[in-house]
């Protein structure tokens, strides 16, 4: 289990199920502040699990750099080709409704479900 926990948000990786759970409000200041999360994502990709689940069900608010960070992670999986991605979203959170199509554009094989 790897964790980044802040007052406003958390990113938790459960390596028994290969599930990343992002929650809360992510409005960090660009690459500088998102770097620890980007590094955690890189470490997970380097472990080369066959599938990763990215659970965004409780990620209520995000800024554009946060969206970019998730996009960078998804693009890195697309380049890798060997890791499947299941994205779990919340249809009541408007930014997720708007972004699922763009994430699928970055990784056409991405699987997606509203939970």
């Amino acid at each position: 289990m790897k964790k980044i926990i802040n007052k406003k948000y958390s990113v938790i990786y459960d390596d028994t199920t290969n599930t990343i759970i992002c929650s809360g409000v992510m409005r960090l200041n660009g690459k500088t502040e998102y770097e620890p999360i980007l590094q955690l994502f890189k470490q997970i990709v380097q472990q080369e699990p066959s599938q990763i689940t990215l659970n965004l069900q409780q990620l209520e608010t995000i800024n554009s750099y946060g969206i970019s960070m998730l996009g960078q992670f998804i693009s890195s999986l697309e380049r890798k080709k060997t890791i499947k991605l299941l994205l779990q979203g919340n249809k009541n959170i408007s930014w997720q409704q708007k972004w699922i199509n763009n994430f699928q554009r970055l990784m056409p094989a991405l699987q997606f479900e509203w939970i």
Partner: protein
Amino acid sequence: MKQIFGEYAEETVKSKEFLKIGFTPNSTQLQQRWRNNGLSADFLADYLTTFFPIDDNEPSTLQRATELKGAVSYIANELLENSMKFHNPNDDYPITLEVKLYNEHLVLCVTNSISPANLLKFQSIIHDLEHIEPQELYVRQIKQASKNDGNSSGLGLLTIIDDYEAKIGWKFETIQTQKPTEQTLVTTMVQLSI
């Protein structure tokens, strides 16, 4: 000197409901000020819900109010973050954010000073937004952000236009000041249907 880009509309009918926030970005630490962007954006979004009452017998009113709150919170936060990235750090000209409510739309405006170097960069971003297809620009910006060390995603204005179907425009104007001699201000205006 004044230059207009995009869909920028000077106010012809006075708004009867509006709220304006102003602050000087250099007066507190960046980290603290950054946190205030989110607080200010959420406050504006909450404040506007007063004008969109929810009728328990009409589920669509709740959905509309929720959508509008989410949109205003996201857009106001992105406008504030942008203004802090592009403002001129060598002056103490305040950044202002204003929301104005009209019968059929609302307007969000942020005004900040801008340095000559940032002015060119900002106008190049506007050029890309006006000339490149959104889907192509999304992919390009995400790829660039992964290579760059900068703190800009290049997605903020693009998401406002494309995800929220908003009209956006910019006004650049030069004003006379005592120090140094003149200052360029940029106002970014976002119009949302309600």
